[in-house]
């Protein structure tokens, strides 16, 4: 079941998993009961630093607070997805939190928490223009979920000049 839905991520992802050498057992799931696990959070926090670069506060402590708010919102976004979507996301995060998987799928040599924004962004640019559907799909999933969680919140609207709903 785990393996079958992983295949739907694309033939590429299955090949990567085989190359990464592990089989599912070596991987930490990205979600548990629909919520981000610690390893899932590590990936998404780094993704947020890169995708939201230019929109996050620059001061370190403020940025930390913004990132933890982001992870909390992301948890809510993910919880609302149906089980099949959660399972795919969990596996994607599992591959990405594993060193070999991260290198193969994201092309990122540094581990997520240590990678610089520039390194992650360069990896993302390779992913989105990759000839391998699995890498493109992974990029879209990470980037779109990050944006969905971030820009749903009123605190992000002022960055877009969006005044919010008209009162009725």
């Amino acid at each position, binding site marked *: 079941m785990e393996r079958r839905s992983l295949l739907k991520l694309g033939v590429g992802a299955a090949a990567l998993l085989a190359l990464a050498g592990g089989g599912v057992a070596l991987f930490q799931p990205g979600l548990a009961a629909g919520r981000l696990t610690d390893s899932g959070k590590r990936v998404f926090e780094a993704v947020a630093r890169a*995708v939201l670069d230019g929109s996050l506060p620059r001061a370190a402590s403020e940025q930390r607070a913004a990132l933890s708010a982001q992870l909390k919102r992301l948890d809510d976004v993910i919880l609302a997805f*149906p089980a*099949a979507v959660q399972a795919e996301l969990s596996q994607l995060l599992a591959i990405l939190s594993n060193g070999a998987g991260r290198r193969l799928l994201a092309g990122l040599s540094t581990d997520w928490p240590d990678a610089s924004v520039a390194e992650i*962004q360069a990896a993302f640019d390779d992913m989105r223009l990759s000839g391998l*559907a699995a890498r493109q799909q992974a990029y879209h999933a990470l980037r779109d979920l990050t*944006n*969905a969680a971030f820009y749903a919140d009123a605190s992000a609207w002022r960055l877009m*000049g969006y005044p919010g*709903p008209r009162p*009725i």
Partner: protein
Amino acid sequence: MTSTTASTIPDPIRSGLQRGWRVRGGAHGPLPARITCDVAIIGSGAGAGITAELLTHAGLQVVLVEEGPLKSSSDFRQLESEAYPSLYQESAGRKTADKAITILQGRCVGGSTTVNWTSSFRTPPTTLEHWQQHFGLTDYTEAALAPWFAQAEQRLNIGPWLTPANRNNEVLRAGARRLGISAAGIQRNVKGCWNLGSCGMGCPTNAKQSMLVTTIPTALDRGATLLVETRADAFVVGHGQVQALVCTPVAGNGAPVHGAAPTRIVARHFVVAGGAINSPALLMRSGVPDPHRLLGKRTFLHPVVISAATFDERVEAWSGAPQTLYSDHFLHSQPIDGPMGYKLEAPPMHPVIVSTTLTGHGQAQADLLKQFPQTQGLLALLRDGFHADSPGGTVQLRDDGSPVLDYPLNDYVMDGARRAFLSMAEIQFAAGARQVSPVHEMARQYTSWAQAREAIQALPMKPLLTRVVSAHVMGGCAMAGHERQGVVRPDGVHWQLANLSVHDGSLFPTSIGANPQLSVYGVANRLATGLAMSLTGRDVQLVA
């Protein structure tokens, strides 16, 4: 239900519940283990709503089964963060199998009509002619359908929109005029519209004449039963008939409610109206006969590509009635079965939709989104299903029985997408855009039409590079005049099972080539009137 603002706007759902509507499921109380009725309708969207109103008018005991929640104006706070998870299929993140197309569909009482943008078009005559010629739908003529559309228009207050278009739409008219391309006004189904622009998050003023505030309340007032947060899992088929429908209580994310018992509905007749993708999936899960292997095939999307433009002045594309002007120029400039034609419209834009649909990340994205107030958007609805190279997609079942649509974006579709990018950029520049950016991973912001034209011609038009979305799912249970070509007959009744009908967008044998809601309303009106007659001998009408 959560209480929200101290609004003075009357809430027709809350007052209906107080009047004693029969609603069960979720917070409305547990489902009975067994229900017997005349007709069970699956879904509560466009096709289901019209059908429920007509069948209850004929005196039939009707049960509606809806997997989404019952929300209403007091719950609609114009917030994407609340609307997408509670009102849309898969939290508005439903995707095709290869993840190249994002699909918006409703999942709440009222279905997609609760969240749609109110654009109302009759089925184009050229589409009907194609159905007559290629699918044996000989009585689907413009003249034969006209009265059914007219009644739906009257019932749902469909008429010209007399308020000036917002600037987002005005760009389409201005650019088209400069280029000598025709553009015209779109009819809308609203009554006392506040011009808020948040139709996609549920109408907080009940102006939109969706099924939620029209036919469903009428049916409930006439004694229909509504089961919410309840999924129709499968029909029990035997002796050439549907014997029963098995339903499961589901949680907000669609997961079965832990420990809750299923409900069995026994009815004389069953009407499937779960919308394209979900309707064929229900029939597939049920193992209904499909001798010609047509079920779930030829599912169409009007694949949409988008062009974003930046203007010097503010556009505020979030504000005001969403789609009020259109151009069919590029539908009419080629034969219907030639290169893919497209309809142009200007969609509403809000932070989540925009930030997930436009491309990029990091500083580039931050800079782009800073321009949101000056950003204008055009979309092209590609008319799929009329050419041999446009067979649409196929519904498949995942291991857990949930549906996923496989829709390959082939070269034929992508050729249409490229031409659409070109047309939209030309119109936007003609209207005075400072920069135009087709929504494609490799596109940049182009500063002149000449530059954009050259760049768009060179863009690799591939899935996952080109952003493609859809809010118009059609087909998968096609009707046809011959058994070999259709899942259901021209009267909506299943070719193999006499007490099963389909009344929703999955009926269409091709895409519509126009926003589909009125096509669903008109066709469901005709089919449900016929069904009421065959079940009761009574002649009922949507409007007196």
